[in-house]
């Protein structure tokens, strides 16, 4: 019981901290995993934000430059300049001149216009017929633009390679150059801004995101004189897109993709790979200048797996760690269990052997003292006493021999003197020599032998010890069966078989496997009815095996045990 309890305590001490450690480690790993995923998303979103800002600043810059250019046009050459822009500037899709309260001055509806211009007129009809106010458009005037700083863009671009950043900068510069069709504009515009605002009319301007034909158009206008016309341009969005697309920084990390999505939810520019139907991990609004346009950030499975990978590898390591602890613990517990059992067995062995030694010694001493006292005079009594003393000392010798043999066998120091031995003669001699003891125990020996001698090469003394140990065992435990049978046969398998069977109580099933183990006794208590060291059968088997044979056990059908000794034949 104590053994079981101590094992339970070992395991509890081992398993509870292990379990606690596993749970804590698991939670920490989950948190770490979450943090890594979040970090990946934040990084990707940061990049997406950088793209948004790059686009915003570019568009803002283009619009501002174009406004400045428009303001700087010589009013006398207004239409000429504008049409030249339209013909030569990729950023200009259409131009217009409109005097409030009058029909469009340019383009003129009808044959004078190209198809594109006629579409332009139709597109902005509501604006030019004043059904929609010019300045009420949300996000239209330049003053309402979201305040975002250029500095930030450069910072958020962060670890984007220098060349990519340079490309982006150069691309933006090229677009800004395009937005200044007249080289001197910048100076003029600045000059204009420097004029003190007195009675002079402050130029008004604005950019209108215009939804028509199921898409976005951007119209820029200025009005430089109070009585003057409103004029401006329609921005060529395709140029903007085409240039932005090639000049946007390219992020090449695997598993991350950025898509610029227009108001119709159509991807207009894509960096990286996106599977069909994949949901964006983050959605960012590009700019108030391009309403409803968004940057979608996609993280694909491989990216998330990259993060998951950390989690799984950690879990595997944790598993190995726990397995190591548990198996190490199991090994130690098992070892402790074995040690404890060994100790118990040895204690039991010592007490058994002491008991065994004490019994014959008591007899010898008692009869010796009786003889010494001289009070016993009857010669038959004296003879009997002497016979008892001799028998008991023989028993003592066998016991001591067994113990000595055991230690020799254990240390592999037992030596054998192999000689030619007739097994038939050996069995007859053994039964004769021990017949008295067998009969004294209340059993009748029966011997069945082959006709001729069975010669083998073996150690006669050792072989005798094997048989004696089996006889001892039978005398001790199977005396009530009344019979002890010796059968010697040729098993035709390279072995002769000596079968020694009794009709005693037999051996319980659960002990059959272990009767040949050293120190094993069916009844281990000190108060056992039968004395014994638990060594006899163990020694018998060791010797039999050393001599090239073996010993086996078979229960007898009608009750009782049979020990079969296999003896190797001569080659």
């Amino acid at each position: 019981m104590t053994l079981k309890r101590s094992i339970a305590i070992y395991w509890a001490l081992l398993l509870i901290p292990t379990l606690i450690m596993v749970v804590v480690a698991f939670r920490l790993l989950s948190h770490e995993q979450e943090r890594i995923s979040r970090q990946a998303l934040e990084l990707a979103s940061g990049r997406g934000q950088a793209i948004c800002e790059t686009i915003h600043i570019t568009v803002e810059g283009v619009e501002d430059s174009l406004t400045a250019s428009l303001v700087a046009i010589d009013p006398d050459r207004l239409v000429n300049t504008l049409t030249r822009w339209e013909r030569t500037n990729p950023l200009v899709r259409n131009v217009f001149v409109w005097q409030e309260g009058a029909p469009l001055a340019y383009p003129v509806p009808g044959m004078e216009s190209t198809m594109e211009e006629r579409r332009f007129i139709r597109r902005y009809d509501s604006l030019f017929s004043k059904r929609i106010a010019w300045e009420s458009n949300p996000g239209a005037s330049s003053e309402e633009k979201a305040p975002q700083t250029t500095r930030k863009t450069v910072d958020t671009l962060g670890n984007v390679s220098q060349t990519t950043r340079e490309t982006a900068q150069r691309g933006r510069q090229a677009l800004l150059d395009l937005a200044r069709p007249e080289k001197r504009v910048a100076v003029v515009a600045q000059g204009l801004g420097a004029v003190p605002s007195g009675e002079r009319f402050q130029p008004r301007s604005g950019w209108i995101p215009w939804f028509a034909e199921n898409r976005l158009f951007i119209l820029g206008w200025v009005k430089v004189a109070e009585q003057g016309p409103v004029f401006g341009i329609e921005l060529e969005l395709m140029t903007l897109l085409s240039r932005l697309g090639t000049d946007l920084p390219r992020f090449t990390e695997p598993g991350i993709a950025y898509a610029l999505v227009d108001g119709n939810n159509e991807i207009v520019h894509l960096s990286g790979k996106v599977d069909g139907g994949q949901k964006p991990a983050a959605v960012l609004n590009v700019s108030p200048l391009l309403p409803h346009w968004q940057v979608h950030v996609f993280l694909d499975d491989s990216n998330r797996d990259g993060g998951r990978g950390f989690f799984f590898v950690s879990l595997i390591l944790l598993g190995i760690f726990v397995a190591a602890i548990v198996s190490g613990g199991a090994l130690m517990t098992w070892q402790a269990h074995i040690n404890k059992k060994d100790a118990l067995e040895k204690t039991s062995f010592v007490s058994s052997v002491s008991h065994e030694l004490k019994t014959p010694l008591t007899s010898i001493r008692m009869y010796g003292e009786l003889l010494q006292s001289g009070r016993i005079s009857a010669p038959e009594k004296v003879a009997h006493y002497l016979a008892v003393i001799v028998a008991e000392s023989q028993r003592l010798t066998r016991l001591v021999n067994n113990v000595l043999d055991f230690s020799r066998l254990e240390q592999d120091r037992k030596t054998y003197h192999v000689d030619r031995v007739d097994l038939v003669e050996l069995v007859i001699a053994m039964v004769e020599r021990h017949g008295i003891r067998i009969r004294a125990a209340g059993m009748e020996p029966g011997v069945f032998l082959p006709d001729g001698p069975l010669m083998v090469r073996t150690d006669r003394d050792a072989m005798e010890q094997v048989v004696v140990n089996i006889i001892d065992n039978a005398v001790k435990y199977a005396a009530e069966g009344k019979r002890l049978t010796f059968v010697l046969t040729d098993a035709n398998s390279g072995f002769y078989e000596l079968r020694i069977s009794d009709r005693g109580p037999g051996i319980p099933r659960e002990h059959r496997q272990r009767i040949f183990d050293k120190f094993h006794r069916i009844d281990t208590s000190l108060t056992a009815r039968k004395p014994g060291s638990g060594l006899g059968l163990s020694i018998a088997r060791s010797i039999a095996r050393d001599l090239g044979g073996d010993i086996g056990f078979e229960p007898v059908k009608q009750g009782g045990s049979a020990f079969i000794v296999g003896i190797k034949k001569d080659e």
Partner: protein
Amino acid sequence: MKPIGKAFFAMALVVGLGLSLVTTWAEGGEAKVVCRVETDRKVLPAGGPQNVVIKVSLDAPLAPSAMERPRVNLALVLDRSGSMTGAKIERAREAAIEALKRLGPGDLFSLVVYDDTIDTVVPAQGIENIEGIIRKIRQITPGGSTALFGGVSQGAAEIRKNLGRDYVHRIVLLSDGLANVGPRTPEDLGRLGAALIKEKISVTTIGVGTDYNEDLMARLSQKSDGNIYFVESSDDLPMIFAAELGDVLNVVATQVRLFIDMPKGIKPLGIVGRQGRIRGGQVELSMNQLYGGQEKYALVEVAIPASTTGSTMEVATARVVYDNPFTKRRETVTARSVARFSDSSAAVERSTNKDVIREYQLNLNALSQEKAIALSDSGREEAAVDELKQSAAKLKKVGIMYKDSVLLEQAEALDIQAETIKQKGMSKKSRKVLRTESYQMKNQQKSK
């Protein structure tokens, strides 16, 4: 001789000498574009107001062999989407190498390939390292989806690196599929083309197989004044590239703008086949570029007022302004047309200009083909077949009347096409053939 007379004589002499000098120089390789203005009949029936077709032709001279041709800045944009596997990509690679080999020293070459991402395989560079470029071309393998807009944009970005210099800028786009990443409507790609031509970049499109979007490709070419080709078998690719390169290497006039002025009383009614604007008595058109030996023309329908027999009337004066890439000078050429009126119908008949009538009919036919496509797209296949058949019948009638074999051949081909569509429906191929032909006709594309 009065002093004024003397001065006049001296001036005439100087001018004359100058002219003869110019002429001699021109013989040395600087021939100008020849402009002709013709009416469908040289002699018009006298009487009430009538409508007349004016054809203004521009005959480009052959590229002078003695002079250095303008250098070419060519960007090849190749679709390497998944559908371009096998023979197609193989031929495309061959064609790209073919194109490359036709370039000379001083020319620039760049190569962009696209699927869902865009790669600049060869950034704009001279062709000194031709072996290295060929090696890169051979490494192109087909991949994912089709980012056509991005591919063309990247090609343009490569061209743009050398934009300010004297090159003929050209993007050649080869695709076999539908664009599925980025802007992909014909309208959007048309706008891209319109923006690119402002930077003097033309986009030639080559559609391979029957799965590409011909409307998108046609619009891109049309707006940027490039050529358009429909290649059913990829085996023809090297040939097409050779033809295209032939055109590009042979540009003799760029930034071509045509102004046709009508005297008072003559009213332009419309331009046939081309886009342009009519400002009162002036028609304005732009044609962008002319290739050596090519004839491009514009057809304008005008209303002529009543007239009397025997009288003459100036119908139109044409002015062509263009850049000569050889001399790097801006040139102007003018021509005018005078019509005579007669009561004699035989004289009118005799004066018929078969050439003008043929081109007029062919352009009307191109418009019919486009209308047929539109009808078929809206599900009215029968009406489309009728439209084509009517157009064929008209071509045949005019062809018989004027014994014109070109018109008769075209009528027959169109009839067969209409019949095929009637039996099998508007196949992808038929649609592509119609779209490509009509564009090539309207633009008088040289290489077909």
